[in-house]
């Protein structure tokens, strides 16, 4: 399975682009999307999910133009949007049945599948209560359950770990890893560690454009041997930040331990192992 995005632009007005001349090829596996706010991650995901149409460019799934034939992807799509809502007067069963109908899923196995999913997201006990009474985390879990109602082959998760506690985030990452065996999974997150742990490939975006895409190691290579740590006086921090790209600071009484990226570090600097977060911050600075 291959999702081919070629020279896509999404123009909102004369000056403002959500995406600009964006091309990427996505194959089976997990692609992590990283980028600051306004980078165009959600716009890209909406276009792939067929709820937004590109101003120009093409997007094909195994050769089928999904901008022209959106129903080709909708049958095999699992989409968890960032700010999705629910119908508060429906309970979890009713809501999932409704979403299943949207996806074109039914039959005698639908009810057992919904029950299994509700069990999986641990909402069986609350399943008959109106969703309007659910907490944010519970709604997020309903969102996760709806993704799996059909047997999705394209999974799009926009900031999926919002509302989940650390333990749940680990379980969710495991779930995504399981799903990725024969699917395309596109995952965006502000939490670099979520992407770092599970993504096969990483795409870094900025201002609607693709900065880089590749295997994690390839992305990290851009800052390898350039990440250092030094201890400086607190008073010198502002001047230091002007000179170097500081990725982290840890305050220690009157001094500060700074982690920074540079080709010419301070004399007493300690070299550090580069991480995806270092590469991300360097590429999007």
């Amino acid at each position: 399975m291959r999702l081919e995005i070629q020279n896509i632009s999404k123009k909102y007005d004369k000056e403002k682009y959500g995406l600009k001349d964006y091309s990427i090829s996505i194959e089976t596996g997990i692609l992590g999307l990283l980028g600051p706010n306004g980078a165009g991650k959600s716009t890209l995901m909406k276009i792939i999910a067929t709820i937004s149409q590109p101003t120009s460019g093409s997007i094909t799934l195994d050769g089928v133009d999904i901008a022209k034939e959106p129903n080709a992807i909708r049958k095999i799509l699992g989409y968890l949007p960032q700010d999705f809502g629910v119908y508060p007067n429906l309970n979890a069963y009713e809501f999932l049945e409704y979403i299943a109908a949207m996806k074109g899923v039914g039959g005698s196995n639908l009810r057992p599948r919904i029950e299994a999913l509700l069990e999986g997201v641990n909402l069986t006990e609350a399943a008959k209560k109106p969703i309007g009474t659910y907490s944010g985390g519970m709604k997020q879990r309903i969102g996760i359950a709806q993704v799996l109602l059909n047997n999705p082959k394209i999974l799009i998760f926009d900031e999926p770990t919002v509302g989940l506690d650390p333990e749940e985030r680990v379980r969710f990452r495991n779930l995504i890893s399981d799903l990725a065996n024969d699917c395309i999974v596109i995952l965006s997150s502000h939490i670099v560690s979520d992407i770092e742990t599970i993504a096969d490939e990483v795409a870094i975006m900025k201002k609607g454009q693709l900065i880089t895409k590749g295997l994690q190691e390839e992305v990290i290579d851009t800052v390898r041997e350039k990440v250092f740590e030094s201890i400086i006086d607190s008073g010198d921090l502002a001047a230091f930040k002007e000179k170097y790209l500081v990725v982290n600071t840890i305050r220690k009484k009157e001094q500060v331990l700074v982690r920074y990226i540079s080709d010419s570090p301070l004399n007493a600097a300690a070299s550090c192992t580069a991480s995806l977060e270092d590469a991300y911050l360097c590429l999007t600075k």
Partner: protein
Amino acid sequence: MTSLKSIIRADYLQRTRSYAFLITLLVSVCMAYSFVPPAGASYSTLRIGNYVGENNAAWIGHSTAIMASTFLWLIGFYLVNDGIKKDKETGVGQIIATTSISNLKYLLAKTLSNFVVLLTIAVIILLMAFSLVILRGRHYQFDILQFLLPYFFATVPTIFIVSVVAVFAEVVLGRYVMLQNVAFFFLFPVIIGIQGLDSNQHPFWLDVLGTKYLSDEMAGFVSTHFHESIKTVSAGFIFSKKNSTQHFLFTGTYWSAVYILSRLLWVSVAFLLLYISSRLFNRFDVKEIVATKKKNTNAVELATNHPLKDIQVTQLPVASSAYGIWPFVKTELLMLIRTGPKWFWLINAGGFIALIFTPLTIAHQIVLPVLWFLQINRWADIATKEKYNNTHYFTYAAYKPLQRLLTSQIIAGVLLAIAFALPLILRYLINGDYGTAISIISGALCIIALSVFTGVLLGGKRFFEIAFFILTYLNVSAIPVFDYFGAFHYGITYTIIIIAISSTLLFGAFVFRSYEIRNQ
């Protein structure tokens, strides 16, 4: 003072920067134009017995001010009764609640914001009236005071009062939007009824709209000049034979101190109502927030005690493909039925019973449109709930969302509307009057088509609510400007016209939704 101005400005801009408001303005322009019928028109908007004034400044000023007062009282409430609700929904209310602004100041800002919105419409009507004086009354002397003062003393206080009433209703019945709509619906006939009372027994100052004094003055003017005792002053769109109408030159009203004081009195009453509202307003419903938190506490406990498990995707039962629309229709019906408080079904049951036992004409001309109007929030929800609940990310990415989902929403709406009308339909069928039964069904289709079209086009409920209110009011008042459910018109041709209008609206809804789905 600066903070008050800032709140009013922000609120005003937020309300007016919408397509719905633009369309309201366009409708206002059309209404204002229709308020002054051209010479030879088959209708009049103000009629003193058989007399209608020549189109000079005094007549146009008075007649349009009377119409504007009535029109803005009628639609004004529905147009502005969501200022506090919006603050609650957007969460801005919780921020406001933590600031030092007093309840009275906040509600005054909301009132003035309502007032400025309605004043914008009043000014548009005034400008249109002025243009019509220039166009149609240029042969007469332009008496600017007699043109402007009816607006100043009748329309402006009226829109201030309705602005306060809207705030009061939001404070007292904040959570019960349906009840607000219904309460105002039944308040309007009471107010209009006061205008029709005998002036000798019921003083004009009882009239909140301030138009009774004007119409009494006009009736007095005609009585004096034509030596007739005229007591009937009709306002609205009155159709009559041209040759039965006589014309007179109206020179204006005597602005008595008592009348001016009566208007001040009503404005003072409005301020008192505002003060009472500020005492009742508990800064974004603390009780409601506590109740919600209580509910959510249970939910959070559930969430904390039962975190996400490991899901074995490969072991999930495999569901088969199903592309039918009935699961949608079922859930859409469920959602429509669950809209609003449960006790409201008691009122619906009353309407249902009335459809069975009241005389056929009353059941058709009054009970049915009122019963359908009571469901206004259900109808308004049909095509707007996705955006309102933020579920459009799911619904627009559904498999064939137009053909399956939108169609199901329409079917569910029409089925429910027909269900409400079922006793009446059955009565007609039993009587063998199949044509009227079909016209009621086409009425159900029409009202759902209107709600879906306006909902899809404008993305909100407000315009539909106002339009449906006006339609219902006019039909119940036996002014069948648009008799969509065949209460006053008979014949298959009329039903076909209604079905054609409904089909056009639905076609428009499909076209706009198709565009919307692809252009998020």
